[in-house]
């Protein structure tokens, strides 16, 4: 696996803005997230989105890698039951989340650093709400063990 680009060391003077990696899906959650931007809704500048075809394609190790690479949290914007590929996408995704949380714990990270919610193709408002709440929760947790 390739290493992540180095994340700039946080500026201690400024308020802590948690860095959140979002996994979205090409056809369902990504348009919803895109809509948040094109509707000029506000969400944290610390959010970075990677789009992929299907939530169930995420590997638990990627999440550990993200946290160890300097992200404070990972948010999976899943297809829920709307996946175009797999009718059991949600079941698979929840298994991946459980495995990833176990990996995080083994690595000495709080499992709360991973969150998943279903985001639909026009769920711009729910998305911004989710990342805002997640950001607050992460701020309370503090910087991830690696970054601080």
């Amino acid at each position: 696996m390739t290493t992540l680009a180095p994340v700039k060391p946080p500026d201690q003077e400024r308020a802590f803005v948690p860095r959140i990696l979002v996994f979205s899906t090409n056809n369902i959650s990504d348009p919803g997230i895109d809509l948040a931007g094109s509707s000029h809704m506000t969400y944290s500048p610390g959010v970075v989105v990677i789009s992929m075809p299907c939530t169930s394609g995420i590997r638990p190790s990627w999440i550990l890698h993200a946290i160890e690479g300097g992200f404070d949290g990972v948010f999976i914007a899943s297809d829920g039951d709307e996946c175009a590929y797999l009718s059991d996408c949600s079941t698979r995704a929840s298994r991946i989340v459980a495995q990833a949380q176990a990996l995080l714990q083994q690595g000495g990270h709080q499992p709360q650093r991973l969150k998943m919610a279903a985001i639909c193709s026009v769920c711009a408002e729910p998305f911004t709400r989710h990342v805002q709440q997640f950001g607050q929760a992460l701020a309370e947790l503090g910087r991830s063990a690696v970054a601080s």
Partner: protein
Amino acid sequence: MTDYDVLVVGAGIGGMESALKLGDMGYRVLLVEKEASVGGKMILLSKVFPTLDCASCISTPKMAASIHHPNVTTLTYSEVGGITRGSAGRFQAKVTRKARFVNETTCTGCQLCETACTVAVPDQFNADMIQRRAAYIAFPQAVPKKAVIERAGSSPCSYTCPAGIQAHGYVSLIRSGEYEKAFQLVLDATPLVGTLGRACYAPCELECTRGSIEGPLPIRRLKRFIADIHYDKFDGPGIEIPEPNGHKVAIVGTGPAGLTAAWQLARKGYGVKMFEAAPKAGGFLRLAIPAYRLPSEIVEQDIANVTALGVEIATSAPVQDLDSLHEEGYEAVLLATGTPLSTKLGVPGDELDGVLSGVAFLRAVKLGEGIDLADQRVVVIGGGNVAMDTARTARRLGAREVTVVYRRTRSEMPAHHVEADDTEKEGVRFVFQAAPVAVLDDGRGATRGLRCSRMAPAKAGASGRSRPEPVPGSEFEIACEVIIGAIGMAPDTDGFSAQVRTNPNGTLAVDPETLQSGSAWLFAAGDVVSGASDITRATGQGQRAAHMIDRWIRGLQLDGFDLRLPVVDKDQVLARQKAYRLAVPLDPSEVLSAAPTDFREVELPMTEAEAHRGAGLCLDCGVCSECGECVDACPVDDCIDLRARDQVLDVEVGAVVVATGFKLFAADLKPEYGYGTFKNVISGTQMDRLLAPTRPFNTILRPGDGKVPERIAYVLCTGSRDETVGNPLCSRFCCMYSIKQNQLIMGALPIADVTVHYMDIRAPGKRYDEFYEQAKAMGANYVKGRVARITEKENGDLVLRYEDIEHGGGLVEAEYDLVVLAVGVQPNSDAQALFPEGDLAVDEFRYVAETDEDANPGQTSIPGVYVAGAASGAKDIADSILHAGSTVAQVAAYLEHAKVPA
């Protein structure tokens, strides 16, 4: 030929449902959609009734599935035509994959092209309420999320430009404030930006669609504007010098054809040397066109573009021997020597002192040979642009009296009409329908006057144009000291006859496509080939010659020069928008004097504000302006290719499902409601867009002034149950979508009053009537009675007149901020066009006929062809899905039955 079990035409909810279910059954399905995304009308809706579920959330999984399903092949931006029945009961169809100009495989959907695009057109996915770019992704939920560049054809200005300049492109770049990019776009065609910005006769402006409104855009002056800005900042072209490719080309002649060819070849890395017989380079640009139209510095700036790329220009270097030039190592030689010779007057006395040729006169003036015409009387003979240039130059050299003598009428003058008008404004006298008979000798070998004869038009000769005949006994004299003949120009090609054949008029006979002569290494371009023409034509030929020489040297076939799309239909352009505002045409800003005394430029430069206003008038006829911004912005190599063209696929299928859906009633067909005229009268579709999660303004507002409406009226049955528009049918879902919108509006704007003017509320079916009651309980007001007329107040508010049936039947007027017309359904005639043999029957309302509607829904008049969804008549979403389901069952039965041995 590609084989499928079923062809489904149209990827709205009915088509997608049919394709997915047939795919699930194991049939191989080809789903074809004409728009850039699947999803049809449903994906654009706000919510669905009566559940108020999000339409997008229901559609997107089906949309995504339709392009990922292993048994379904989906082609978007494609159109089906010509479905015919072939052998063994199967069908042949042609599918046109319209050029997207974007590689569907490598496009990442990043939208950088959309951001860079300089053209905005009405957004059909937002019911024309806002604009989208020519390079666009249909909407945020589009599947596939791939960009399309819409090109309706070539814009008339760009198409008509003989010099091959993307006129529309540089206009749209100027509109975006990208002046240097606009300059570079012109440089792609020719180095003569400043020159053409002044001296071109602008055939583009004659073709401008805006010309039929209040007048064409000032396309030429916009080019001058960008040239002036560029030359203020740079001395040369402002591009990198290309790597030499090791090949050498010689060009004879440095007029517009030669300079353009040299520029094009040098940009490709050729070592180019130019040979000019005159002491200055530039041909007629430098030696004929007077400085008040085209200052010499401008020509020199343009020539500096060419020399900046390393092109050598030898002046006072006439070429005598083409063969030895070729032997010196120039792999190709281009002749672009123009038409330097003048036609003699051919009347007695034309050898006297004081008789000159126009070309020689203009050249002497431009070379500063100190000609003084103070107090002289000058007669200019001829009606072309050279005659006008000559007459105006003579005025500036102090001539007391200048007379133009022309043998035909004013309207027949070949000179550009603006030139002729300006000539007259500068105090030049015209004598029409007169021709010289003899130059009069003052007895000392000089001129004392010109004897002329009146001319009468004669019958059209073989050339099609009438040849004037002298009127007997009509001779008269004009006293003058100087006579300048400007009656024609000819090439000087005697020296080249060994290598290239000449025509009787002295022009060179080369292949008109390739410009190649009988000697393969020798090409010719410009006026030496075409006879005297104009700068743009010569420029275009220079470009063509460079293209062909490059291909010849590289050993390629001599073709591929003209890549224009067919020109767009102007009526189609004007139909794109509902109304155009008349704009005040820009002032031409010419400073003309009745007695000009110097060679200062007569035309003033444009201000930046004028340039913006001028460019802003563009109607974007071809949609894409070919400005090339998207190509530069795209992060993927070779993803955008404006040379792409439509492709036609031949397919063979076992059955066809027609799912072409419906059209919405065009509400402007009921003029009493003012749709299209009153800005605050909108359609139900537009209201649905205002309410949708992907809505254009992120709130509900009225389009006229952006005010948030407080009093909103609905007019139901607009275009439905209405014999006056030829539609007696109920559209079945307008009541329900209006009720849905009522509830959503009351949710979004709690203080808004919603009133619905209805004939009957049709809310049959499970939870539909309850939905209606719910809207009433929320506070929507339902008023029975058809609206007769809507009028608009000055502040944009609207007055509805209706008969209040429930309260005594009196005429009532009510005022609203916003009126929503609940438009109904119209049949989509696209369905019939699919079958060129005309055998797809339609019912009396022109919907696709279901021949056995009660027993076998979905079956059409053609065995093996089925209809799904609203193509067979108005259906809401739930009914469309149901209907598609029954059609799928029919198709499956048909396909299975066909397998049973007879």
